[in-house]
């Protein structure tokens, strides 16, 4: 047994880290550091910079146009990017649409869409949830009816992350009402500029715009933009869940947050002493660090299994629960560290619409919005309750 990366792997990570250090635009770095909302242009600019080194589609094989990294290298590259202070990518193209098209797409679809994903020339979002179909996704009602060589789509999608920054939406629609509701679902690629698409922002508790609701009214989608056959949408969605639930990258985000939390605890004072040395806070900090170590080691075990082509299995759900819990806890402690300065909040500042100086220590201002935002970590992408149902059923046979 050996839980260390090789010298070559670490040298590779250093190369990526150096690239990020030299090429992350200072204005984007500042926004990420201060928790200010990023614009479509910010995301697009950074993703294109990563694409120049073929580091946007970091998970793609060489034969598909990707960098062809090993599983360890993928993890280390993403870690270097996060620890370097870069924003998270709007990664639905590289993480979802790409893998799906590679597995299920027609040659025309691959030729049309894949190069623009690799180059970050088109940004994608994911249209799954609906007002009545959240945890119970198979309940989705958004309908697509065939009309010549087009589908006519009508319905509502919700909780679509970064639709306002995206060009296209990878969408699950209902093409028929089968007795088993999973059977009538089909996957369409929808142009968000098409007539009949209306995107409305959903502002969350942190005051920011991450989510959207899409109203689709008689949107005409070419049959050529259907992925797989009619009724294969559920199969494709399940294929993707395997990709979405590889949450190892959240270990790296957690590491970045832990560092930030330690910096804050070292700077804040309690009766003149460091908050980091105050016994109750120090115990909480240590507990989080140990939780994170357990999660990180679990993640490494999963990476090693995946590298050895062994099935990862139900551990994916365990990891999701624990990395998200650690993330939530880290944000909670950063908020607690602020004491009274956890309270000031002006939406215009957090949305980057004000130049007024922030109230209190500038590193604290974002902590409470981030805490509220982090509460979604146990809701989005399959809630903790759903993950535990999966574990109860599949891991424990209950």
């Amino acid at each position, binding site marked *: 047994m050996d839980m260390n990366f090789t010298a070559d792997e670490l040298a590779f990570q250093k190369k990526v880290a150096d690239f990020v250090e030299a090429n992350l635009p200072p204005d984007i770095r500042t926004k990420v550091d201060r928790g200010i909302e990023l614009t479509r242009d910010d995301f697009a600019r950074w993703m294109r910079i990563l694409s120049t080194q073929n580091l946007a589609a970091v998970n793609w094989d060489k034969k598909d146009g990707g960098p062809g990294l090993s599983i360890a290298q993928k993890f280390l590259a993403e870690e270097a990017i996060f620890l370097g202070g870069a924003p998270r990518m709007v990664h639905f193209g590289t993480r979802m649409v790409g893998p799906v098209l590679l597995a299920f797409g027609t040659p025309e679809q691959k030729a049309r869409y894949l190069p623009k994903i690799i180059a970050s020339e088109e940004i994608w979002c994911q249209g799954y*949830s609906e007002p*009545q179909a*959240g*945890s*119970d996704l198979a*309940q989705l009602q958004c309908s697509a009816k065939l009309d010549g060589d087009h589908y006519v789509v009508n319905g509502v999608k*919700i*909780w679509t992350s970064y639709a306002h920054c995206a060009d296209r939406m990878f969408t699950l629609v209902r093409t028929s009402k089968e007795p088993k509701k999973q059977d009538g679902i089909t996957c369409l690629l929808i142009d968000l500029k098409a007539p009949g698409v209306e995107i409305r922002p*959903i*502002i*969350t*508790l942190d*005051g920011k715009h991450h*989510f959207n609701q899409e109203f689709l009214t008689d949107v005409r989608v070419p049959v050529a933009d259907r992925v797989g056959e009619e009724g294969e949408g559920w199969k494709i969605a399940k294929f993707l869940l395997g990709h979405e639930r590889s949450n190892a990258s959240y270990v790296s985000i957690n590491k970045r947050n832990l560092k930030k939390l330690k910096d804050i605890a070292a700077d*804040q*004072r*309690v*009766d*003149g002493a460091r908050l980091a040395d*105050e016994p*109750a*806070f120090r115990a909480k900090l240590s507990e989080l660090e140990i939780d994170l170590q357990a999660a990180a080691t679990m993640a490494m075990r999963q990476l090693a299994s995946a590298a050895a082509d062994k099935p990862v299995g139900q551990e994916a759900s365990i990891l999701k629960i624990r990395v998200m819990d650690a993330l939530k806890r880290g944000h909670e402690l950063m*908020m*607690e560290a*602020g*004491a*009274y*300065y*956890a*309270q*000031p*909040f*002006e939406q215009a500042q957090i949305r980057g619409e004000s130049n007024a100086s922030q*109230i*209190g*220590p500038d590193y604290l201002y974002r902590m*409470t*919005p981030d*805490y*509220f935002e982090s*509460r*979604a970590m*146990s*809701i*989005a992408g399959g*809630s*903790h*309750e759903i993950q*535990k149902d999966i574990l109860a059923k599949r891991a424990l046979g209950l």
Partner: protein
Amino acid sequence: MNFELSEDQVMLQESVNRFVQNNYSFEQRRKIVGADQGYSDAHWAQFAELGWLGMAFPEAAGGYGGTPVETMIVMEEFGKGLVAEPFVSTVVLAGGALVHGGSDAQQQALVPQIAEGKLKMALAFAERQSRYNLADVATTAKKSGGDYVLSGAKSVVFGAPSADTFIVSARTAGGQRDTAGVTLFLVDANAPGVAVRGYPTVDGMRAGEVTLTDVKVAGDAVVGAVDGGFDVLDATIDGAIAATAAEAVGAMSTLNDMTLEYIKTREQFGQPIGKFQVLQHRMVDMFIAHEEAKSMAMMAAMRIDDADASERRKAASATKVQIAKSARFVGQQAIQLHGGIGMTDEYAAGHYFKRLTMIDRSFGDGDFHLARFGALS
């Protein structure tokens, strides 16, 4: 032993409840906190008319002689609607300091004005380095003839933008964290050298950074004894803990009602999600958390006037620890049970969660009061 409200207290509760029902729907509140001022002058006038602003003050001072139980009743109902008027800053904080430390002359001059709704006040006690330690005061007050000259900066002063008069803690003697040597001063918000940068807080309320640059006040502006302000401040903050505990109880009660309604009506997998046992038990734990918090808020209301300062402090700290635990659990789980909709700004649940979270960040958090309670036991 009697945990029932008197007839008059029931009437007060019904009256505040009616006000909240009529004036604090979620949409109405959004308008109020979204406007520049962040509260309604008409509501403030109504509070005065209904006697709520003078209620907590002794009759001799021009108040109506109420007890902390009346304050609890009002605050619990306010919490149900997340009432945003600067009641805590004027009546509970600055008013509390006047009750505990004000001279007869100060009380008789200021309390009737507060009761009539003509005077808003704020208590400026926190500083950038102080966290929750009331004795950590770097702002200085230097004697100059019969006057004092104040210099320093006060942090996150609740109700600062609307305050006509501040009560400011400043150091007249001793080291930066000595309890002895802290003195409280009445400072006119318009006095030369006073600057206020107002802002909204996360929960939609208002606060401000108050900077004092060579602010001159007369000798009779001292509230309580010179160098003896800490005890006044300490008793005042304990009163604020009791009051905001009741507010948190009200907020938790609404949030629990909202969540219960949601899990009864939201259907997934062919049934209301409230049919799933894991959510039933979670909801029961939230219900228990609220009941515990309510018990402790009642205890605080009955003990917070205890002549024995050590008993008072223990009651306040014990209550604050319970509120921290209950409010955190109820707030976080209410969002989790609501799912995505609970995360949105346009849905009420998140705003209750925010207020509960900010109550935990005020007057000492759970850790602070756990340590304070331990030191007193």
